[in-house]
C-alpha cells in the first residue's frame, strides 16, 4: 500500500495540496511529495487534473471464496413492541439490491412480543423473516442482541447485512461486526451494487459532509452497512401474503447463551419535551438569530401546529436556550425531515451537515448573505419575530375556518 506520484505528469500545480486536510502534501522542486501525515483518504487523487496521483494496492483482490454467502439481510430494530421505520426503509432498499443480485431478501428481528409489528415487513418485499421473540430480549441490551444477531448471520450467511444507524444500532452493529470479524460502513447515504464484481458499494459523507466516500468491504463477509433513518424511502409493494407463516423462521435460542453484563436500572422519558428530533417529518429549528430562550416557545408552537419538533443550532444550545438533544449538525444529530425550517440560523457548514438532505428547506434570516440560503429551497429575508407569529396566526385561522 503506497501513494505514488507520477513525476512525469505532475506539474507541481498544488491543487492536491489545497484539498489535503491532513497537511500531508509538500511541493519540492515543482513536484509533489507526500509525507507521513497521509491517511490515504484519496482527496488528492480526485483533485488532480493530470491523473498523476495513484494509491497503489487499492482494492487488492479478495482471495477468499465467499460462494457460500448469499442474499441481503436487514435488521428490523424493535423498541418494546414498536418497530423502527428505518428497518422498513432498509427492506425497500434491500429489495432493490437483492433484485440486482438475483438473491433473496431476508430480515432478522430480535425482541419480545414483536411478531405483529415485524410481519409488516412483508409489505415492503421481504422473502424471509428470522424471528427471535423471547422475554430475554425485553430490553435493548447491546451484548445479548449482538450475540443473537451474530448467531443468525453465521447460520444463514447473507452476503449483505443492513441496519439502521439509530442510537442503539450505532453501538450494537459495530459489536456484531467485531464478533463476525468483518467490515462495517457507518451512516451510508448511498448503497449500490458493482455490476461487474457483484459487491456492495457503500457511499457515506465524511468530514462533516464535506466529502463523500465510496467504500467496499474486502476479504470478509457479510458486507455490513448502517443507514440513518429517513435516508432511504420505504415503499409498500404488496399485501402481507396469506402464507406468510411459511416465510417465518422461528429461531430457538438457548437462554443460557444470553447472560447480559448490563443491568438496566431506569428509563427516563422526557415526556414534556420531544427530543427524538430525527423521527419527525417537520423540524423547526432556531439559531442565534432567535435572540433568547423565550423565543423557542414560538417555534414550539409552530412545530406543534405542523406535527413537528423543535431543533436548534449549536449556537442556540451553547447559549443555554435549549437542551443538547435538540441540536442539529455535526456535533448534534442528523435529521432528514420532509420540511426543515431554519429560523435565525446562519448556516455554518457543520449545521448544514446535519440537515442538508432534508426534502424541503425553508430559511428565514435577516442577513441576505447567510450561507443557509445556499442550501435552502425557499428563503425569506426578514425578521422572524414578525414572520413566525403571523404564520402561526395564518395556520390557526385556516384551521378554525376549515
Amino acid at each position: 500500500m503506497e501513494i505514488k506520484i507520477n513525476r512525469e505528469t505532475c506539474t507541481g500545480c498544488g491543487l492536491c495540496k489545497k484539498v489535503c486536510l491532513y497537511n500531508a502534501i509538500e511541493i519540492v522542486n515543482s513536484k509533489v511529495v507526500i509525507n507521513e501525515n497521509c491517511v490515504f483518504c484519496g482527496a488528492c487523487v480526485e483533485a488532480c487534473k493530470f491523473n498523476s496521483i495513484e494509491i497503489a494496492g487499492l482494492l487488492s483482490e479478495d482471495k477468499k471464496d465467499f460462494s457460500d454467502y448469499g442474499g441481503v439481510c436487514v435488521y428490523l430494530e424493535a423498541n418494546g413492541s414498536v418497530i423502527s421505520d428505518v428497518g422498513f426503509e432498509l427492506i425497500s432498499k434491500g429489495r432493490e439490491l437483492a433484485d440486482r443480485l438475483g438473491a433473496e431478501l431476508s430480515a432478522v428481528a430480535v425482541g419480545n412480543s414483536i411478531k405483529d409489528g415485524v410481519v409488516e415487513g412483508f409489505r415492503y418485499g421481504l422473502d424471509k423473516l428470522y424471528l427471535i421473540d423471547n422475554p430475554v430480549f425485553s430490553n435493548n441490551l447491546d451484548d445479548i442482541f449482538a450475540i443473537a444477531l451474530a448467531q443468525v448471520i453465521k447460520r444463514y450467511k447473507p452476503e449483505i447485512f443492513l441496519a439502521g444507524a439509530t442510537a442503539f444500532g450505532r453501538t450494537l452493529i459495530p459489536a456484531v461486526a467485531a464478533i463476525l470479524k468483518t467490515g462495517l460502513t457507518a451512516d451510508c447515504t448511498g448503497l449500490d451494487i458493482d455490476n461487474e464484481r457483484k459487491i456492495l458499494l457503500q457511499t457515506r459523507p465524511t468530514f462533516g459532509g464535506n466529502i463523500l466516500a465510496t467504500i467496499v468491504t474486502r476479504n470478509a463477509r457479510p458486507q455490513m452497512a448502517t443507514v440513518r433513518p429517513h435516508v432511504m424511502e420505504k415503499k409498500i409493494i404488496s399485501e402481507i401474503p396469506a402464507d406468510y407463516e411459511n416465510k417465518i423462521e422461528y429461531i430457538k435460542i438457548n437462554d443460557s447463551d444470553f447472560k447480559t453484563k448490563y443491568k438496566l436500572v431506569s428509563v427516563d422519558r422526557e415526556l414534556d419535551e420531544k427530543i427524538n428530533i430525527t423521527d419527525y417529518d417537520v423540524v423547526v429549528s432556531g439559531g442565534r438569530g432567535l435572540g433568547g430562550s423565550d423565543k423557542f416557545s414560538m417555534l414550539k408552537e409552530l412545530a406543534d401546529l405542523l406535527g413537528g419538533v423543535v431543533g436548534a443550532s449549536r449556537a442556540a444550545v451553547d447559549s443555554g436556550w435549549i437542551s443538547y438533544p435538540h441540536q442539529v449538525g455535526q456535533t448534534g444529530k442528523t435529521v432528514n425531515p420532509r420540511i426543515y425550517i431554519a429560523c435565525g440560523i446562519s448556516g455554518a457548514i457543520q449545521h448544514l451537515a446535519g440537515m442538508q438532505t432534508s426534502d424541503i428547506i425553508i430559511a428565514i434570516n435577516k442577513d441576505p448573505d447567510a450561507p443557509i440560503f445556499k442550501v435552502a429551497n425557499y428563503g425569506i429575508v426578514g425578521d422572524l419575530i414578525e414572520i413566525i407569529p403571523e404564520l402561526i396566526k395564518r395556520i390557526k385561522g385556516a384551521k378554525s375556518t376549515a
Partner: protein
Amino acid sequence: MIRIKIVVCIKQVPATTEIKIDPKTNTLIREGIENIINPFDSYAIEEAVRIKERLGDPDTEVIAITMGPHQAMEILREAISAGVDRAILLSDRAFAGADTWATATTLAGAINKIGDCSLVILGKQTLDGDTGQVGPELAQKMGIPFVGYVSSVLEINKNNMKVKRLMEDRYETFEVSLPSAISVIKDINVPRVPSLRGKMKAKSAEIPVWDSEILGLNKNEVGLSGSYTQVVKIFTPRIKHDTMIIEGTTDEKVEHLYRILKESHVV
C-alpha cells in the same frame, strides 16, 4: 480511596468546523485548516480527570493514547495540560489508512500493553471519520461491556459503575461491571481550561512512541492491510438547489409560506 487505571482514546483531526464555503465559486475552502483535538475527546479527557478527582486517590492514573503521525504528539501534550497523568503515542507508518476495525485493533493492543485498565473512555465520534464505531468494536475485541452516548457517570467504584446514556427519545441508566468502555457526549461536562502548572508539565512530559512491534501486532493486522473496508472513490458533494427568495410584504411572505406548507400537506 480507590485506585484504578483509566485510558482515554483521543484523535487529532482536521478542524472541519472551520471549513467555509467560498461564496463566489461555491466550493469548499480547505486550505489552512488546523489540526485540533477531536472536540468530543475533550469531554472524554475531562470526564476521566473528574473521575480521578472523585475517587480521591492520587495513584489513580489517567493515560491518554492516540494513534497517528508524529504531529499527533501535540494533542497528547494538550491532554496532559488538561490533567491527564501520562500519554503514549501509537505511531507507525504501518498504521496509516486504518479503518475502524484496524484502529480498534491498534488501540486494544496498546490498552492491553498498558495493562490492568478499569475504564476506557472515548468521545462519541470523530469529526473526520464521523462513525462512532471504534468504541464498540474495541470493547467487543477486549471482551468488555460498552455503553455509548453517556451523558453522566453517576457512580463509580473499584468494581462497577452506574452511567446514563442518551437514546433518541429517552435516557437509560445502566449498571455495568468494570472493566468497561464508554463513549461520552458533549452534555457530560464542561472541559476545564488548562492550568499553567498543567501546561508546564505538558511541555516537559516524556511521551513514549509505540510502534506495531512494541505492541506485538503483526503489520497485516493494522493500518490499511488490517482493514476490512477500503475507500475506492472520493468525491465532493454538489451543493445544489436553486433557492427561491420569497419577496413582498410580511403578509405576502407569510401567505406564500403557508401555501408551501399546504402543498406539502403538513397543514
